[in-house]
């Protein structure tokens, strides 16, 4: 669920950046939420090192920080990928097989909901409704809603990313 993805170098950096945020806060337990939001704002997610630093700072057990982070949807345990995949599981998308679409993404990317691929290319998550139910089942790819995303379209979307990648590397080499 919470795989370690950061290297030692990154860990040091995470600790430093987290500590910088403390300057603006007192050691009150009530400051936990704003601190978490600021740290995520800076790092893009909440790594274990940051959680431990926050727990130390507020003098509370590490599990309490973890508990709050896992309770709220707004907090991420994994770093954001270069491309974000948001599978809609709202009522209409649910009826149209949103779970099948989600399973297809999970299988293709080999990650679970809320996780990021080891190369940090994609991160996968679900959303409740994005407001374009006519296009169900919807997947929001990099902020752009894609309609009628059935497993074959998942393959198609991933293929498009691959092509883009190839083009980029060709341009860089040539």
């Amino acid at each position, binding site marked *: *669920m*919470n795989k370690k993805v950061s290297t030692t170098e990154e860990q040091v950096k995470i600790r430093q950046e987290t500590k910088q945020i403390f300057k603006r806060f007192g050691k009150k337990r009530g400051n936990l939420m704003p601190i978490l939001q600021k740290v995520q704002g800076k790092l893009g997610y909440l790594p*274990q090192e940051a*959680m*431990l630093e926050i727990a130390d700072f507020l003098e*509370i*057990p*590490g*599990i*309490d920080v*973890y*508990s709050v982070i*896992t*309770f709220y949807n707004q907090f991420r345990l994994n770093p954001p990928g270069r491309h974000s995949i948001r599978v809609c599981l709202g009522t209409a998308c649910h009826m149209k097989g949103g779970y099948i679409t989600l399973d297809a993404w999970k299988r293709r990317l080999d990650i679970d909901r809320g996780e990021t691929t080891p190369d940090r290319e994609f991160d996968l998550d679900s959303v409740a409704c994005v407001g374009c139910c006519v296009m169900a089942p919807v997947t929001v790819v990099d902020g752009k809603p894609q309609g009628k995303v059935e497993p074959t379209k998942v393959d198609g979307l991933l293929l498009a990313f691959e092509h883009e990648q190839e083009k980029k590397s060709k341009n860089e080499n040539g």
Partner: protein
Amino acid sequence: MKTVSLTIDGKKIETRHGEKILWAALENGIYIPNLCGLRDEAESVASCRLCFVEVVGKEQAVTACTEMVTEGMVVNTRGAEALRMARSGFELLLSSLPMDCAHCVKSGSCELQKIAHHLNIKLKSKRFRKLLRELPIDDSSSLFTYDPNKCVLCGRCVWVCRERLGVGVLGFANRGFQRVVTTFAGEPFGESKCQECGDCVSVCPTGALTFKNGKTEEE
């Protein structure tokens, strides 16, 4: 010390001023189903919703763990409305538990069996559809085994871990059906800061936390 006298199930009882009905009843040999309550806790979390009792003069059944005793109070622990609510709560709880008593070391001393007997409910109650969590068992501690599938999320272990011992290894994570009692980042007990005092195992009402030597109490 100021005392208060009240009647529970027709029995006259004297208890301390400010006491909660649940503890007054239990001290006097009147059983009220309960899971989440701990005697030393300053304020009950009242999350298990099993200790419903009826108090004369109150329109609705109340949770015995939060209701303070008053002079001349008349409590009925076997009122139809209170039992109906406790039964529904208990059956909902059972619907996400495996209830494999035949293979559970806790069988015989399990609070769930006691409550089921008291409420006259079958442990294999079919009222609600079974929905299991199917979480992995943590066998990494040298002292105990943790099976989150058998956990009722009463929070007793979480409370003793931090209040009585000041350790704070255990806590809740996630939300809704995914909610579990776990360690920081969900790491196994063997790799956590757990000092293996075993107090959490002693307060666990179910077979979620059990000593590896098969005993239910620490020696």
